[in-house]
């Protein structure tokens, strides 16, 4: 992708271009001024002045340019040099009024640098020159050739001064405006470049988003078939083991068969957890109406045969209060409830006479508040944060994959909900979840 230049870099490049172009022009103008001086020398035989002052002026300009290459000082010097040429020509032509126009030519030339400040040295020099030569003429000094008049009235002098000021001011103004105009143009060019760049980036982003969606879909169907291909043999094994169980009364065999079944179920549970995890992390959030009563019936039906033979039956109590319809992602909510309720069954307290898990759902227009509370073995305070970690299991006797609560946490986050855990060892555990209502 093309690299987008910064505003400053375009600006600097432009200024450099203006400078180079103007510097080149200055070479021609200065040589022209020098030659014009020589030409004027013909009239009153001022060869020494023309060659001497002219070459000193050029020397001042070029030496500054060479000695201070990094600065703009030479531009101020050229401004001064124009003033000097004016003074030189006036003198050479013995005060010919038209020679005063040279100052205006210089002022106009300086506009090319687009810097109004360059007018200042020229204007200052003109003021000093006029003031001193006018005074010298006034007091009757001879052969200074300031004007052709014998004597310049104050009124003439003031009008002369005002006109000169106006010319310098206008040339300075043009320089300033030219600079502003160019800056605006640079800004527009820059904005346009940036706009094009953004459009390109947007396009690229959309493209990669499409690719991502496609690969997500592909990955999902991959996960679907892998999970089927992994789980199908497990269910066959469970079926055959079930047949064996039916066919024997030998307690030794029955005990072994139970162990095999536990292992198969554990492996199957692990595959389901991984499947849930990958679904939750990739699939987009669905918006559908959730019927909590149906959902809870499904979940508790699925968990009916859970728990080992020596465990008591856990009483699943559900209360749903829903005055308004609730919209969210059914798959993810079912993952959340399934994991929490199965944990309550799995980690029931053997000392409790009536193990239960209580699910309260309260639906409002803004959110659904879900409470899952049991009288199980509880989670110690130090473990209450860790249980949400991936693959964390409280003890090696834990039966699960260590993914369950991690998936719950992830799914709640995906649904932009919040989750809170309160638990006390030996008393029970309570999960409070608030999921926003995704109606709209």
């Amino acid at each position, binding site marked *: 992708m093309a690299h987008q230049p910064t505003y400053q870099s375009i600006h600097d490049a432009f200024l450099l271009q203006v400078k180079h172009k103007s510097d080149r022009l200055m070479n021609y103008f200065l040589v022209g001024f020098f030659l014009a001086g020589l030409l004027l020398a013909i009239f009153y035989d001022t060869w020494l002045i023309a060659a001497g002052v002219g070459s000193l002026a050029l020397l001042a300009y070029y030496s500054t340019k060479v000695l201070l290459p990094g600065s703009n000082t030479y531009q101020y010097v050229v401004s001064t040099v124009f003033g000097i040429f004016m003074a030189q020509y006036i003198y050479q032509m013995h005060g010919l009024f038209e020679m005063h126009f040279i100052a205006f030519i210089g002022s106009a030339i300086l506009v090319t640098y687009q810097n109004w400040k360059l007018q200042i040295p020229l204007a200052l020099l003109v003021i000093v020159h006029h003031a001193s030569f006018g005074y010298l003429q006034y007091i009757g000094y001879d052969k200074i050739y300031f004007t052709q008049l014998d004597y310049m009235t104050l009124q003439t002098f003031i009008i002369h001064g005002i006109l000169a000021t106006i010319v310098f001011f206008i040339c300075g103004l043009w320089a300033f405006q030219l600079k502003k105009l160019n800056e605006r143009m640079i800004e527009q060019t820059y904005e346009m470049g940036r706009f094009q760049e953004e459009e390109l980036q947007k396009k690229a982003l959309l493209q990669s988003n499409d690719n991502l969606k496609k690969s997500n879909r592909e990955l999902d169907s991959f996960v*679907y078939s892998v999970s089927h291909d992994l789980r199908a043999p497990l*269910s066959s094994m469970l079926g*055959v083991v079930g047949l064996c169980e039916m066919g024997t009364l030998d307690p030794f065999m029955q005990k072994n068969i139970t162990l095999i079944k536990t292992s198969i179920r554990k492996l199957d549970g692990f595959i389901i957890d991984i499947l849930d995890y990958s679904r939750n992390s990739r699939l987009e959030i669905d918006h559908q109406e959730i019927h909590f009563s149906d959902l809870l019936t499904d979940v508790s039906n699925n968990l009916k045969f859970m728990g080992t033979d020596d465990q008591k039956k856990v009483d699943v109590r559900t209360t749903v209060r829903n005055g308004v319809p609730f919209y969210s992602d*059914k798959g993810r909510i079912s993952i959340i409830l399934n994991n929490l309720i199965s944990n309550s069954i799995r980690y029931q307290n053997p000392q409790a006479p009536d193990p239960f898990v209580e699910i309260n759902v309260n639906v409002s227009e803004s959110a659904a508040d879900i409470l899952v509370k049991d009288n199980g073995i509880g989670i110690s305070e130090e473990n209450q944060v860790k249980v949400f970690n991936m693959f964390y299991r409280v003890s090696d006797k834990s039966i699960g994959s260590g993914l369950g609560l991690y998936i719950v946490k992830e799914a709640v986050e995906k649904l932009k909900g919040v989750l809170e855990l309160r638990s006390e060892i030996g008393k029970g555990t309570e999960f409070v979840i608030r999921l926003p209502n995704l109606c709209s």
Partner: protein
Amino acid sequence: MEFKYKKAMVIDDNEIDLYIAEMLMATTGFAEKVVCVSSAREALAYLKSLNADPDSLPQFIFLDINMPEMTGFDFLNEYQHLPENIRKKCIIMMLTTSLDEDDRTQAESNQFVRKFLNKPLDRDKLAQLTAS
């Protein structure tokens, strides 16, 4: 031995699952005769062949979803074109390892499907069918 039903059919590409279903139905007295077919195509051919003899049709059909060539849903699409006297005799149960929500909704919304069951089939699940 007393049998609940005269005939059941199981459609599954997995030989072991066919064996499990057959053994279970025999030992629990679910069905007197169990017809095992390993593809949906075979099942359709079998059902069509009994068009003239509706009494020999299976009362229960256990249908797998993930099968090569023709899936369980493909079978259901073909099944709706069968003559009515075949369709009204049979009750179809989905029997699959799939836990996919879409599979479940699709199956349960089909007019011919009575129930969506997860494998493996066992005594309790069969007992529930006879109870309902």
